[in-house]
């Protein structure tokens, strides 16, 4: 048994009946006890993967191993999984206690009622819903329904917990609170968890590891900070980060990167960060907004279109080569709408991508 590959997915493919290829050759592994976030924009295939892992959908090809054993032909109920649905999927005609007990009183793992109730009580205490036992789901708030769904998922003591956007129906403040609770809960139970989300902040804050999907392909499978500091490609760089990254079109001619109104000498870049030698041609230069800032010796001139306050910092918005770009500055910096500024980049922190998204610097 390999704890580093407690969940292993190999060359997974899913083509729907209508010909849409939702998952294209996806492989990844999850370590035992980890909380892994499957991140991506809507329609990227992350929920499809979760459904395939749960056995609610059949893969077109590929292999899924739980704890070293193939589960492709195993029924959902025999996969030892818990699943929290986006809409919670609570049974509306049952009370909270009956909902939580349900997995214990049906099917072949049926337990005597007293045992089922005792186990249900234990998980209801863990998720702090004991006092709601006799309520019907319709009388509960979103956060409470969420807790019931989690308790119901955990009550079978599954090996793997699958969560499909469990926070998307909650308001912003509650979302922050519940996501911390979820992390604390799954860590205290020690269950391996796969958590689907489209919210990068959510993924960065609770995931031990993040797998970023787009178009049915893994874009990056890595620790959270690496998505920010070392994005694999143009998509990752643009998907992760708030405010979003600035992109400038540049052309490499001889030893220079020429943009519309500024030029960078390639010798000024950190030579060790080049993935390969640069051929002449078009590239995209991407800079995180905190790595482009006003300075007297700045290399591009811009007019501030707008200033947006986001707490401790302010975002200066400006237009360069017809695309909007942003610079993140300190709250105290005396810059206002319409000011002319010179902007400088931290060249050891910029990224260079080919037009088809491959990272070269």
């Amino acid at each position, binding site marked *: 048994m390999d704890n580093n590959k407690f969940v292993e997915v190999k060359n997974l493919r899913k083509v729907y009946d209508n010909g849409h290829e939702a998952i294209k050759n996806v492989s990844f592994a999850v370590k035992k006890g980890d909380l892994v976030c499957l991140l991506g924009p809507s329609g990227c295939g992350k929920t499809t993967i979760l459904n395939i892992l749960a056995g609610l959908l059949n893969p077109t090809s590929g292999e899924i191993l739980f704890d070293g054993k193939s589960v492709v032909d195993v029924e*959902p109920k025999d996969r030892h999984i818990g699943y929290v649905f986006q809409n919670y999927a609570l049974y509306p005609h049952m009370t909270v206690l009956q909902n939580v007990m349900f997995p214990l009183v*049906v*099917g072949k793992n049926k337990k005597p009622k007293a045992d089922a109730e005792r186990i249900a009580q234990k998980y209801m205490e863990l998720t702090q819903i004991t006092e709601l036992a006799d309520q019907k789901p319709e009388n509960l708030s979103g956060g409470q329904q969420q807790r019931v769904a989690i308790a119901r998922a955990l009550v079978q003591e599954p090996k793997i917990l699958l969560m499909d956007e469990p926070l998307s129906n909650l308001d912003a403040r509650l979302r922050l609170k519940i996501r911390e609770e979820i992390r604390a809960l799954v860590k205290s139970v020690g269950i391996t968890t796969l958590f689907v989300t489209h919210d990068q902040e959510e993924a960065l804050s609770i995931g031990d590891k993040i797998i970023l999907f787009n178009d049915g392909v893994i874009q990056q499978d890595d620790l959270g900070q690496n998505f920010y500091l070392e994005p694999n490609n143009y998509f990752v760089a643009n998907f992760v980060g708030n405010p979003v990254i600035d992109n400038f079109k540049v052309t490499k001619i001889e030893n220079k990167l020429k943009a519309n109104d500024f030029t960078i000498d390639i010798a000024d870049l950190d030579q060790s960060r080049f993935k390969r030698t640069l051929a002449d041609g078009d590239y995209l230069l991407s800079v995180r907004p905190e790595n482009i800032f006003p300075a007297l010796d700045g290399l591009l001139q811009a007019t501030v279109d707008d200033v947006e306050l986001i707490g401790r910092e302010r975002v200066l918005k400006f237009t360069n080569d017809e695309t909007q770009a942003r610079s993140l500055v300190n709250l105290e910096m005396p810059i206002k709408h319409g000011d002319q500024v010179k902007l400088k980049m931290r060249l050891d922190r910029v990224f260079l991508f080919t037009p088809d998204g491959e990272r070269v610097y």
Partner: protein
Amino acid sequence: MKRFRIGTIFSYLILFIFAFITVFPFIYMILGGLMNFQETTSIPPTLIPHHFEWGNYAKVFAKAPFARYFFNTVLTASITTVVSLFNSLLGAFAMVNLRFKGKGIIQIVMLSLLMVPGEAIIFTNYNTIAHMGLLNTYVGLVLPFLTSIFYMYYLQSYFGSISETIYKAAMIDGASDWDYIWKILVPMSKSGLFTVGLLSFISGWNSFLWPLLVTNEDTMRLLNNGLTAFASDAGSETQLQLAAATLTVVPILILYFIFRKQIIKGVVRNDLKG
């Protein structure tokens, strides 16, 4: 304010007229069943009998085996209701939740069968039943009505409105399809099932043409056929005809009164869901 009041009065007036037109035959039937012969045929007509002739009912029972008709009707209506409800429940569940090859084709075939009026196939059915030697039997009376595509479709739209994730959650929770049907689907669709059950019972109660075809013995007759036979048997005794008619209508009327809330709920819900 004044206009509002006139409008209200006007709409109440219209309501009253239509309610009167609808309800009057029923009231007259019940009252007529308690009159003597002269009162039912007199001109101008009598509305309230001078003396309530409860004895009419005793005469009705003496002239025809209404108790037997009643028993036959309750039995066949109950059997068709229970069995067709069960079948449409399973059929609708399969069409909504299960995935199998040819589901689309089955759906289309059944939908097109729905277009065929019952009267069009009634003689084919008669031949089948006659060949099977089931004339004048309870089996012959109920057999063609043990499944209903219409009720299945009705339930299908009902079940379809239940979120798909509920079924998925039940699968992961370890429930079998059977568990899902009885512990989740049925309790969640109570009013829909109730409406189907009630509609089925009422149509079983009111069935006329089919029982007329497949039965000719007095002991196998249902109320409606018994009533028509009785109308000619009783000759000109209109008060007895009215009393017999009351006997056949009253039970179903009582059902309506008891369950009117559920009937309305079922129908309204169906409308909202389209």
